[in-house]
């Protein structure tokens, strides 16, 4: 026999009861009571601190699971979910069957859940909390709402209290009352909530996840565990998607695979394609890399529902096959190669670079994702000598003495090795880009190309000037020449 349980939270500087179990309710405890009072009355009650973040995580995972019924799942406060099942009910054998199925499955997972179904979000909210799990037919909202308490209208506690103080306790009492005095006295929110529940005012429910333009799913009578089976299903579903994509004249740029595990956990795997694709074999190739990178799939007792969605689509230009086999200059195979690497090792794994107009060496290059498209225009070759390898960060070097104050060093120590400078070219002065922000008094850099005894060529710079008020300049090594 477990002791009665009470969840506490901090409310207006005092520990108060946030939630209670049935046993505690039987003891006469209720929400909002001070924890000190509870301890005094019933020392045997177990008190646990509330964890809002954990509650949110649980609700999020539940929302993930609810994706099986509809892609439009939204949060309803901290303790509820809205499911927009427009056009989905027939897939589950009608509204009543769907509602029963949802309630049963949630109960099987160990949740004490209340479900309701209606034509408006407000009515469904009320039905879930105050009515039996039976769908409310469109048009019956007023009749269904009338006997319910005013709490069914999602009102602010202050409004509820003031309504109660004038003797208005049920929805029926305000349903036929003249509207202007109600609005004047209790605010426009009351009538808005009423109209939303009745369907006179539309209420938008914003879905939690973006809705995929196309998706295919498979309900499996026997849960699948093995990766090979999952891959086979991906191939079959990609074949179905291909037909739809062909009809729309599009190809998928981004695909998502959702795996619904028997115990309610949902796994999502996404792959991107740099070119629109529809071939099932190519789709499978990308997902195979993703699954390989995942390693152990953690199938547990198996997946009972698998869904493949196109998250982003783009126009697909069919191209005529070349009669001459061999090199394809458009780089389609390179694009696929890059996609596979990205699917397996992350988006940053393969990058091309592009030149940026900037004087600062570290800003002169931007890394861009490789798309497989041939380069559009080649910019001018830089006039100045630049190193072929640039260190991620300029590394400080010790310079004992420069030959002349503004000249190159005679020797320097980099990574604990002393290099004797035989020849040097420079300086090339690069001033900070003050027009891009940053500090005004940042010192300039004087770059030198130096060569040591063995012929290694380095790019070193002096940060600042000798005799400047900012202090003794420091030396850095920034790159290696060929």
């Amino acid at each position: 026999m477990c002791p009665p349980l009470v969840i506490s939270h901090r409310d207006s500087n005092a520990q108060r009861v946030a939630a209670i179990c049935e046993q505690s309710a039987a003891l006469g405890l209720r929400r909002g009571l001070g924890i000190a009072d509870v301890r005094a009355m019933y020392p045997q009650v177990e008190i646990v601190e509330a964890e809002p973040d954990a509650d949110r995580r649980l609700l999020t995972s539940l929302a993930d699971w609810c994706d099986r019924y509809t892609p439009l799942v939204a949060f309803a406060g901290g303790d509820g979910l809205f499911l927009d099942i427009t056009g989905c009910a027939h897939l589950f054998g009608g509204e009543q069957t769907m509602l029963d199925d949802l309630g049963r499955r949630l109960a099987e997972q160990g949740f004490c859940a209340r479900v309701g179904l209606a034509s408006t979000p407000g009515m469904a909210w009320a039905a879930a909390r105050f009515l039996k799990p039976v769908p409310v037919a469109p048009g019956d909202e007023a009749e269904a709402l009338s006997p319910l308490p005013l709490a069914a209208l999602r009102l602010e506690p202050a409004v509820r209290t003031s309504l109660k103080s004038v003797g208005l306790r049920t929805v029926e009492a305000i349903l036929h009352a003249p509207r202007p005095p109600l609005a004047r006295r209790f605010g426009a929110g009351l009538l808005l909530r009423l109209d939303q529940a009745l369907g006179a005012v539309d209420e938008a429910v914003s879905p939690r996840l973006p809705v995929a333009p196309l998706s295919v799913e498979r309900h499996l009578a026997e849960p699948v565990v093995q990766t090979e089976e999952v891959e086979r299903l991906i191939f079959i579903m990609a074949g179905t998607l291909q037909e739809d994509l062909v009809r729309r004249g599009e190809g998928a740029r981004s695909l998502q695979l959702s795996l619904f595990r028997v115990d309610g956990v949902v796994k999502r795997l996404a792959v991107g394609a740099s070119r629109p694709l529809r071939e099932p074999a190519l789709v499978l190739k990308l997902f195979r890399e993703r699954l390989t990178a995942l390693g152990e799939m953690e199938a547990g007792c198996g997946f009972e529902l698998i869904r493949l969605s196109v998250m982003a689509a783009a126009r697909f230009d069919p191209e005529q096959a070349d009669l001459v086999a061999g090199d394809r200059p458009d780089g389609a195979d390179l694009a696929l190669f890059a996609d596979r690497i990205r699917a397996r090792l992350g988006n940053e794994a393969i990058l091309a670079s592009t030149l940026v107009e900037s004087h600062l060496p570290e800003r002169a290059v931007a890394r861009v994702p490789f798309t497989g498209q041939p380069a559009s225009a080649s910019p001018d070759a830089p006039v100045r000598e630049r190193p072929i390898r640039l260190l991620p960060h300029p590394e400080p070097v010790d310079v004992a003495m420069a030959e002349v104050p503004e000249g190159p060093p005679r020797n320097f120590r980099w990574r604990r090795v002393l290099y004797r400078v035989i020849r040097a070219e420079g300086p090339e002065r690069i001033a900070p880009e003050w027009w891009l922000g940053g500090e005004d008094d940042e010192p300039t850099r004087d770059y030198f190309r130096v060569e040591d005894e063995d012929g290694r060529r380095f790019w070193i710079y002096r940060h600042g000037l000798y005799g400047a008020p900012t202090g003794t300049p420091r030396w850095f090594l920034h790159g290696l020449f060929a």
Partner: protein
Amino acid sequence: MATNAVAHEAVCALRREIARIEGRLPDQFEPPVASTSTDDGLLLRHGGLPVGQHVLPTGAARLDAALQGGLPLAALTEIHGRQTRDAGAVAGFTLALCAAVLKTAPVKAPLLWVATGEALSEAGRPYAPGLLHRFGLTAETVLIADIRRLEDALWVAEEAAALTGFSAVILEVRGRAKKLDLTATRRLHRRAQAAARPFFLLRQAGLPEPTAAPVRLIVSPAPAGERRVLSRFLTGSIGPPAFLAEIGRSRSAIPAKAVLEWNRDECAFHERTDPADGAQDTGAVAAVSGQRPHPAGAAGAQLALRKIA
């Protein structure tokens, strides 16, 4: 005579078998063909490359003789740098080879640089403005795959080696790499052969280990020559880069080393026999005006407009 012919046949068959096992072309045993193009001007191509042109001459006579004509193009080539601080020279030498390959390629396909993250953070990332300036490789042509683990880098390299879409693949590894053993390098070599594309394996800072690469070059930096400005050398200037290339391993097993100097204008190596000899290319003392789409027009007859009264 008949027995002689049979014996010749058997020897030829055995040689062909050996060549197949070693992954060589059997015609290396035959007298060399003088020209790849036939008499009627027909040039046979396989995978975009002219048939028979499977080597890249380095430009140094002794090196080319030891390498039997040049670096094999459809193969794995190991390029070794003794220390991490030589990474500039090793990378420069390899990119120069890539630039030379690209010069003759019919399609300017991109090249892929696969590196473990450690190699890039220690020796620096390839820097696009420098590559463009020194080797004429545009920023979009050089793809960089920065992979943290060596296993993944090997996978990427293997997949890339099998593609004909890349003009060359470079795999850079730092220090000792246990995973990069004889089997792994043999797989890379086989794929490069099948795709008829060069694959360069860059090893920084490590002792030479047994690999399946037919050629291993040990590259170290060499003092650069001086720039030639207006038909004389500019004292104290740093000219185009020079490399000391040494053959660590080759089919012929002839030891050879040479100082090679990269000429940017011709996109080729030149051997420097006399260290006091100056550089061939002019360098960038004066601003180069390369690749400008609209050059300035010639001055016309009318230099100033007449003032309108």
